[in-house]
């Protein structure tokens, strides 16, 4: 440990602005919903773009799950889940809102609970999505729109190189035809719900704006990958990406992405570093550790080790930029048709992570492997081997992170520190020799 490394990290102004914007926006959404406005309850991997363009507010399942957890309600609902007869190995992250709905005591929930949505929407990527949403539909009487999710017979490993322009080849004409037809079916249903017609010109401009926003994130991603030392913490990267992603394509989101980029850029130019004598670069593989974000900074002082990578920023570029080639609806189909498979299915997940690790000069990866959410856990060992082949030391964390009961911070710090000691010793040895 060196004195120069006692961290006097200054938070980004943009991170605070994003959080404030989101707080106001959530307040507005809450007022709207409480005032009886229609809304849609949708899964994370559905085409939010269509709900937005049709002017129907959405509440996403994964976000509402995080809201319930933030109110310390998850343990109560996990217990309730058991009393309803659901076993405790079922996916929890994506089902907390359903359990809250089935439990029925709205006063317990934030916002006094959610009223019945005008529509439910999910994609059948994993077999439990349909079940969770069918139970929700049965409980609330809301109509359920399910997207088909045919598998990918011939996944090209370098998907991120093809996805932006050559998505027709990458995802396959048959799958895109089906997805596009189903997108139009959803549009028709949303037209009936909102009483508004779909405006193709408006949609094309909106899709264009989203690509521009993701290009900005792509720039930030390149800058962060190339910066000699990591200039910002991932705990700040995450809100700066996720919040504008939520509002993707809006004027605010574009402006915010630019402000974030400019702030990162000037930090790099000024030589600002999270760890002035940075010596180990780490990546966090998996969903964010939302309930203990300070963990991301835990090894800065002790080991000059920084978390330089989390999936949200690079995925904003690789997962979202889809140039429309004259057909914005088909481009949207290309964006959603394999949205989460790209993060979970071999060879897509392993080749992408290995490429990211190389670009970011990663030494150590912390890999979260959920045991009871198979869909998110699949491909983990292929990813682990690919990272190791790329020279990365991998620390596996087998845990369902939505359940904070499973998170033992002290033990984890001890485990990671031991690995970092070894990596550091080896690096020092390599430098001497």
């Amino acid at each position: 440990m060196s004195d120069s490394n006692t961290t006097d990290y200054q938070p980004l102004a943009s991170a605070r602005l994003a959080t404030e914007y989101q707080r106001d926006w959530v307040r507005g959404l809450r007022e709207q919903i409480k005032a009886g406005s229609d809304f849609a309850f949708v899964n994370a991997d559905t085409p939010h773009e269509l709900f937005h363009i049709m002017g129907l507010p959405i509440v996403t399942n994964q976000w509402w799950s995080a809201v319930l957890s933030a109110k310390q309600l998850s343990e109560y609902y996990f217990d309730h889940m058991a009393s309803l007869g659901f076993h405790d190995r079922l996916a929890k992250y994506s089902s907390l809102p359903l359990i809250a709905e089935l439990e029925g005591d709205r006063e317990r929930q934030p916002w006094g609970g959610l009223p019945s949505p005008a529509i439910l929407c999910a994609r059948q990527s994993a077999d439990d999505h349909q079940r969770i949403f069918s139970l929700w539909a049965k409980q609330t009487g809301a109509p359920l729109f399910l997207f088909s999710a045919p598998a990918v017979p011939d996944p090209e490993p370098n998907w991120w190189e093809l996805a932006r322009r050559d998505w027709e080849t990458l995802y396959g004409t048959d799958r895109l035809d089906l997805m596009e037809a189903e997108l139009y079916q959803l549009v028709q249903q949303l037209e009936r719900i909102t009483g508004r017609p779909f405006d193709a010109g408006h949609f094309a401009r909106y899709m264009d704006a989203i690509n521009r926003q993701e290009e900005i994130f792509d720039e930030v991603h390149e800058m962060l990958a190339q910066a000699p030392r990591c200039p910002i913490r991932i705990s700040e990267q995450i809100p700066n990406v996720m919040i504008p992603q939520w509002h993707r394509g809006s004027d605010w989101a574009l402006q915010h992405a630019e402000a974030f980029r400019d702030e990162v850029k000037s930090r790099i130019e000024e030589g600002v570093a999270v760890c002035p004598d940075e010596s180990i670069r780490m990546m966090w593989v998996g969903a964010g550790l939302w309930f203990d974000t300070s963990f991301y900074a835990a090894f800065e002082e002790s080991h000059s080790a920084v978390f330089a990578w989390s999936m949200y920023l690079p995925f904003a570029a690789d997962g979202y930029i889809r140039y429309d080639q004259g057909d914005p609806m088909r481009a949207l189909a290309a964006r959603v048709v394999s949205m989460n498979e790209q993060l979970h299915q071999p060879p897509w997940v392993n080749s992408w992570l290995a490429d990211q690790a190389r670009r970011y000069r990663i030494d150590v990866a912390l890999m979260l492997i959920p045991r009871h959410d198979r869909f998110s856990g699949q491909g983990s060992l292929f990813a682990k081997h690919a990272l190791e082949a790329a020279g990365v030391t991998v620390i596996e964390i087998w845990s369902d992170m939505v359940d904070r009961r499973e998170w033992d911070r002290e033990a984890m710090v001890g485990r990671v520190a031991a690995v970092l000691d070894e990596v550091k010793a080896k690096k020092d040895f390599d430098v001497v020799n």
Partner: protein
Amino acid sequence: MDSSNAITQLEAAFAHKARPAVTEEATARPWVGCFGNGIPEVLLAAAGCRVVDVKSVPEPESNDRHEGINQFIEPFLDDYTQLFLNRLANGWLNHLTAIVFSRQDAAALVAYQYALEYQRQGYTEHPFPALLLWNAEQGSTAAVLRFNQHQADKLVSQLVSLGDRQPDDAAIATAIEHHRSRCLALEELTAAQCEQRPRLTGLDAFRWRNAGRYLEAEQFQALLRAALSGRESKPVRTGKRLGLVGSATDSEALYRVLDSVGILVADLQPFGRIWPGPVEGVTDSDSLLQAMARDPFCPRGHSSIDMINALADACAEARCDAVIAQMDQNDDTFGWDLPSLQQALTERGIPVINLGFRDFRPDESACTQMREHLTLELGA
């Protein structure tokens, strides 16, 4: 054909599960393995393939692990996925020309993805059979039907490129006829299993039914009918009438436990079903695909509520006194259905006994425990 001879043949076919040593016709015709229900076997048969199941695990192959492929297998993968990958890597499926994986079977899809990636990375010690995905979706919209039609064309052209013949209308019509007569024979088995005075054990019905996964449809339906025709000579079984629901299981030990506490009259786990899918109204390849896309028992159907009602109705029709639920250690789907199924069955006056998680091959002590649990609950 005499009944006991037919039974011997069915049992031998099931016990052997088409392992390589008896593939006497292996060179004569391309053998194609199928992983999961919902595969259009009619098209495979019409292309001249000999179709055999690869999901159910032959006992001698259930323990040998393959070190290479195991470094990529997470412990939470489905048991059938794990064992299949080991068998594939060990070379025990080398006698197959191709393996078709059903996207409708979650275990099959992951097996496909992992096998493909293992092969892509060049780890294979011997060439794998061609790995083909049957990528159809459930639904009745024009877009889904068009998509499924495209998958059918693709599957056929893949088979043709492997040396099978392009199926013409006549070959398809013949295959549909065989498919139908097999389905009808299987329906007779289902009816025999739940008749007023049942004589079959659950284990018999399970073995006979699934023996068909390794036999030609024509030969199988004849054997099954012959086997069924002799059942009058067996004693009438007495006891509580039971249904079985939950995760796929091919554990004979589990069936022995059920047979010891009651009479299995409705076997509704995936290996208890009539496969590969519905046959009603099927006259050609189009109607076949349409019927398959609307299978009420398909785990990827559009409403688990409909599937639950279909299961509960089937239990009621079989006049079950109780329904036994069980799931594998990594279940992530049936657990969502169970409370609603329990409710639907209660509404029909049928109690549910939940055995909870069970091992892939429950050992002696697990079986004893299950038996005690069931005996207690059934008051038998």
